[in-house]
């Protein structure tokens, strides 16, 4: 199953959340974390990896997609993106076609493909969200983040046929996250006719900030920290959805 982790606004903690979520799920599931910001790699930096082969070699030089997969060292695998490759920032139809075929193939080999998308609502972000069975939208408790999350959900649902959304409050206390969820969902429900599923809140945590500086996932050394516990809980919330496979198996090419 493919799930995209996305936000509209940048800097809300997508990549660090994605890395930790992959770790939270990987003992039980075969997880592949796809760095979906194709031209501006993040994931490998977050984990201090230096991949030899990236999606660039797959899309521009015809290498097989499997050749680019690396082990994270934390139980899940990674499909790394390229760094600073302009052609990949907005890939053309041919590249997207090739990438889609590759991802669908990998989807059979892994239980879960997580797309860590880039920021904004660029065509490639929307493309990854369409490919995914679910879009997991992160927001932080601030007006711009909420507005951008709403705008992304609107575009995806109205013009791209994506109907399955998870909402996750990041850098928010449980109470804050929930209140924002209730109100955001009311607006989404009223104007877009959708009811996204709330996955919970991940609080601000100095340990998380430390883990980013250390370039190691929080869950790999401080499982008892507040943020780590919250992310583990999100993982539990997600599990029931993995059974309901192929929800939108045939919707896109």
């Amino acid at each position, binding site marked *: 199953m493919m799930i995209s982790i996305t936000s509209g606004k940048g800097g809300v903690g997508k990549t660090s959340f994605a890395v930790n979520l992959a770790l939270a799920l990987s003992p039980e599931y075969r997880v592949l974390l796809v760095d979906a910001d194709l031209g501006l790699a993040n994931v490998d930096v977050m984990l201090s990896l230096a991949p030899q082969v990236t999606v660039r070699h797959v899309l521009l030089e015809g290498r097989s997609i499997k050749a680019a997969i690396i082990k994270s060292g934390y139980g899940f695998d990674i499909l790394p993106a390229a760094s600073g490759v302009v052609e990949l920032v907005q890939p053309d139809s041919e590249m997207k076609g090739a990438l889609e075929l590759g991802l669908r193939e990998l989807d059979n080999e892994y239980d879960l493909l997580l797309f860590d998308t880039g920021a904004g609502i660029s065509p490639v972000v929307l493309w990854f969200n369409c490919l995914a069975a679910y879009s997991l939208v992160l927001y932080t408790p601030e007006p711009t983040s909420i507005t951008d999350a*709403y705008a992304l959900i609107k575009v995806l649902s109205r013009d791209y046929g994506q109907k399955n959304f998870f909402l996750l409050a990041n850098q928010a206390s449980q109470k804050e996250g929930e209140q924002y969820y209730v109100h955001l969902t009311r607006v989404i429900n009223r104007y877009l006719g959708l009811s996204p599923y709330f996955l919970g809140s991940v609080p601000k945590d100095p340990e998380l900030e430390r883990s980013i500086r250390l370039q190691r996932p929080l869950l790999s050394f401080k499982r008892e920290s507040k943020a780590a516990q919250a992310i583990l809980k999100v993982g539990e919330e997600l599990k029931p959805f993995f059974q309901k496979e192929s929800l939108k198996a045939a919707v896109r090419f």
Partner: protein
Amino acid sequence: MEIERKLREIEAFLEAKTQKNLSKGELWIHLEELYQLCKELYEQASIDFLTGLYNRRFFEKELELCVERAKRERCVFSLILMDLDHFKSINDRFGHLAGDEVLKGVGKLIRESIRKVDIPARYGGEEFAILLPGTSFEGAFSAAWRLKKKLREYQFGTEEKPIRVTASIGVGTYRPLNGTSAQEFLSEIDALLYQAKEKGRDLIMPERESPTEDKALEGISFEERQALKGVWSYDDKHY
């Protein structure tokens, strides 16, 4: 029901034929009935007999349904209209039989290039239509792009007399919130197809996959913005 009854009558007639000699008059009556039956079936058919795709009547009904469904479920669907380029000259140069073979082949190519949920139809003489339920513009554009490529690379006809065909294509996505009717939507895409012809054929219009950028990113309305404001003003009251 009427058809079923007639069928049974003719069946009985065929069985009886081996037992007794029938008069010419009776034979004519049954032949007449058989003809009527075929005609009725033909009129009710949803298949285009040459290509095996759906016919125009069925397509138009499906298009209406897609529009209704999109409005009700707030989902999108896409439409591809494709017209073979210079088809008349193929008929002129290679004969109508060869032309028919090409149409059949195109039908096959279309069927091979789409998913089971899609609805391919022969819309007119050399015009084809594909409905793609639940598909966004990007998906439809890449389908059209692949189809155009396949068609262009495919060799129809025989080894000695190869026939090459290209097509002009219009693609569009129906957005329920725009409130357009099926007919309006169809003419929108038809206009795009016409543009593709005008611009030199073997083209897809719109030319670039410029998804929704103009329309979709027009952003959120004033009302939505006001409603969203409530999301964080709520916060102020409680902290």
